[in-house]
């Protein structure tokens, strides 16, 4: 049964770029739950209009959460142990 609310990490690219000042969808992040490494663009994205929730495609661990309030960007990336961001 397809999960209609799940998008790809690509869908969060614009919001993540507000925080990282670059496109991070090709950054490879290691999951703190199961240590699988995957590009952010390939993670499962939830959150809709509440914020960004990126989950590991293997174990569903929440790897990154982001909320944009009028005054700030709140980020929890404790589900990522290491993130490697390519610089061209």
């Amino acid at each position, binding site marked *: 049964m397809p999960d209609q609310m799940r998008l790809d990490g690509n869908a969060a690219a614009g919001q993540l770029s*507000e925080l990282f000042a670059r496109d991070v969808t090709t950054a490879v992040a290691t999951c703190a739950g199961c240590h699988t490494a995957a590009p952010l663009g390939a993670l499962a994205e939830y959150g809709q209009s509440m914020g960004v929730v990126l989950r590991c495609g293997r174990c569903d661990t929440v790897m990154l959460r982001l909320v944009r309030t009028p005054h700030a960007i709140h980020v929890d990336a404790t589900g990522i142990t290491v993130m490697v961001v390519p610089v061209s």
Partner: protein
Amino acid sequence: MTEESETAAASPPRLAWQVASVVETRQETPRAHTLVLDVPGWRGHRAGQHVDVRLVAEDGYQAQRSYSIASAPENPRIELTIERLDDGEVSPYLCDVLHAGDGVEVRGPIGGYFVWSSRDEGPVFLIAGGSGIVPLMAMLRHRAHAASELRSRSRMHLLYSARTVSDIIYIRELADLSNDGETRVTFTLTREPASSDWKGERRRIDRAMLEAAGWPAKEGSLSYVCGPTPFVEAAANLLVEIGYDASRIRTERFGPTS
């Protein structure tokens, strides 16, 4: 295609909202419209990327959506092809109200994961469901600009699922591409009336169709799947079943079926 330059300080940062001018609008199918936009200081994009579009009303009400760029990076103007959703908030405005001379706010280009460059070698399998054809069209158009040597190293097969023949976006252009001797285009329709003289496939994608339309799994092709979420999930799962390497399947889910 110019390289990004650190000294291009005169251009606005590409992650900021900018007002683009509508140069032309074009109806592709009864439900799909293309906007041709001039974006000031546009520094190019990669095939597969999207832009965010933001609409602000006089009372401050805002709506924002993402739209894939349909045009090739070689085109100095960007084209967005938009599927008009009857009860949508943004698409009816973009399709019915905007005309040449209007401004519209965009941010981008965005997305480095679901992209293809003609410098990427190897066979490519593009799988589109409905309006999922849009970013894949940018890839096909980009490839058409490449030198023949590069093209021969990155042959593309496209499988495009649409409801009826009148819903196939870019049908003429795709028919021309399929005659170039290098690109295989397979159409399948899911709601075409049995009475029509359509000679292509007529059913939802399945394993046999993917095997016929795509590449042998051992070729290690790069696959791009785009469209409504259930379509993308079905296609991606079938590819893995056939033996495609999951790490070489890129997906862009557009969300629940409207």
